């Protein structure tokens, strides 16, 4: 038996070249899903293999990597992916959004506004925004080619007719620079406005579905809506119980089996930074249980 040896950042150089070429095309055609020959990765499909391949292809020894899952650096999958790159690339890692050069994320965009020179890498399960309206790739590819998004508008309109509102709360579709309708990955729609005119480069990797797409910096990203039913952000109507933030996306935490619950920032770095700079680090705002 031959003991396997692995390259810097796991992927071999030929694979990286292939992915790098796809990334360049993705940036040149904002919002278009570039097919790529996704590899088997040492973690299961659906656990970030697309994001990991993108990160592995751009990462260099001078990068500082941050990995979040659900906004948090300490969720198990974030820890696992961070360790993977520590082990295979030896890169420096951080939990501070502002110190990172590359941020790999699942389901969130950090609260702290991103800066020029940063790259945000999204893990994407289903890259095709039309997939749940039309399961066949041949059909959806044609729709993108013709910029025929009537099916999506019809779906959103039916939502309004049935529920009185657009009933999509995450993976809320966007239009990129007036051309491609794009799936933002399953981020809560609260994060959609952060994609618009963002200073950082946003890359999206879908491993199982073998697609890479991108939003260059300072690109118009518009959440689909109707004039009489404009897009609305959503967050729980509460403050973070740890830092008091009233502008961050909140996780609901169940505290007992008698209906007790509290809300805390989903972005742990944002929450910790706020607590570190607050006068009373663990101050609990009035009206919330201690």
């Amino acid at each position, binding site marked *: 038996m031959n003991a396997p040896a692995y390259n810097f950042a796991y992927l071999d150089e030929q694979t990286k070249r292939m992915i790098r070429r796809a990334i360049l095309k993705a940036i040149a055609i904002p919002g278009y899903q570039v097919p790529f020959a996704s590899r088997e990765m040492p973690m299961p499909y659906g656990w970030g293999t697309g994001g990991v391949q993108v990160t592995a292809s751009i990462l260099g020894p001078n990068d500082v990597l941050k990995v979040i899952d659900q906004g948090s650096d300490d969720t198990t*999958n974030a820890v696992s992916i961070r360790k993977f790159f520590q082990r295979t690339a030896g890169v420096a890692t951080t939990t501070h959004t502002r110190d990172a050069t590359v941020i790999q994320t699942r389901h969130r965009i950090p609260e702290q506004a991103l800066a020029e020179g940063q790259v945000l890498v999204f893990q994407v399960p*289903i890259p095709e925004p039309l997939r749940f309206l039309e399961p066949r790739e041949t059909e959806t590819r044609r729709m993108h080619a013709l910029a025929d998004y009537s099916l999506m508008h019809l779906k959103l309109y039916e939502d309004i007719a049935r529920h009185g509102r657009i009933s999509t709360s995450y993976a809320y579709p966007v239009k990129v620079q007036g051309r491609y309708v794009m799936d933002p990955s399953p981020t809560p729609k609260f994060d959609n406005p952060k994609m618009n005119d963002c200073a950082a480069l946003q890359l999206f990797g879908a491993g199982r579905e073998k697609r890479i797409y991108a939003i260059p910096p300072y690109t118009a990203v518009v959440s689909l809506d109707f004039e009489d039913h404009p897009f609305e952000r959503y967050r729980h109507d509460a403050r973070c119980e740890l830092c008091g933030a009233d502008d961050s996306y909140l996780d*609901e*935490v*169940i505290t007992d*089996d008698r209906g007790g619950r509290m809300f805390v920032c989903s972005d742990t770095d944002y929450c910790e930074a706020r607590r570190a700079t607050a006068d009373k680090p663990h101050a609990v705002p009035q009206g919330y249980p201690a």
Partner: protein
Amino acid sequence: MYVAVKGGEQAIENAHLLLASERRGDPAIPELSLAQISEQLTLAVDRVMTEGSIYDRELAALAIRQARGDLIEAIFLLRAFRATLPRFGASEPVDTGAMAIRRRISATFKDLPGGQILGPTFDYTHRLIEPDAADAAPQVPAVVDAVEEPMPRVTDLLAADNLIERSPARDFDAPVGDLTREPLSFPAERDVRLQNLARGDEGFLLALGYSTQRGFGRTHPFAGEIRLGEVEVEFVAEDAGFAVPLGRITVTECQMINQFAGSATEPPRFTRGYGLTFGHCERKAMAMALVDRSLRARELGEDVKAPAQDEEFVLSHSDNVQATGFVEHLKLPHYVDFQAELGLVRKLRSDFERGASPDALAEAAE
């Protein structure tokens, strides 16, 4: 030689000898013990028990060894044995809320009463082949004791707020469906569907569950909770009149929380999909929960369009012992039928060459 007009018996006998010899492999290598299989190929044993529908680790280990590691063959062995066992009745429903928990995770809440317990899982391992790992003595893990206090199920927490449909109330008078005693009929009730799925092939259910995630009958699933641990099995013997404990078994339970359904008369609320397996069969439990929810399309007034929603399609093809039997039966001789077909094709061809019309050919084919 495969074709032998006479001497088939001798051929079969020799094939069996060859098989036994191949199964054993090089006699210079020590034979696998049942304890080794049960202790070190635990997940294979768990799968064979689940789909074989018998909770018996030693028997499953034996079947795996005899089947040369072919798990469907091992499941087949267990099923065949199970068919010979007397049926005393149905146990009381196991109370997974009172489980002694070794693993419990929820993807829907960051934290919840009882906490997230990662337990023994491949989930966050890096799939790097480590040739030395097999020999090294494992480090002692930090916590090995199961949590014995009852831990509320996530679905119960949501049910308290009426945000999810209730578990169906138990009907003590209703008979417990059993498709090993009553042949499957359609439409099938949920108890029989769940039994079918629990015995169903992991790969088949996995593919069906996956198809729903890709848009063929989407159900917007969240893994509300997955728990692994030990539960008590009790049995009410008619003559005793009270529940007698039979022992503890390991089970994996998955409760999927799915897209809300609402109507003019009912406010929107989340719905459920359920999966339960013997041992630690997490992939199976999750796939089962996805497919269970899909098969409730009819009950919840959803359009039945996708394969995973089609009860007849799913339940009729989930059983790998049935499936492997029928697929592999094509190896059996079909000389008689084939000869008949051969004759027909020859006749059609000669008609064709004489210039008969396609319609006439179609008629001849019927």
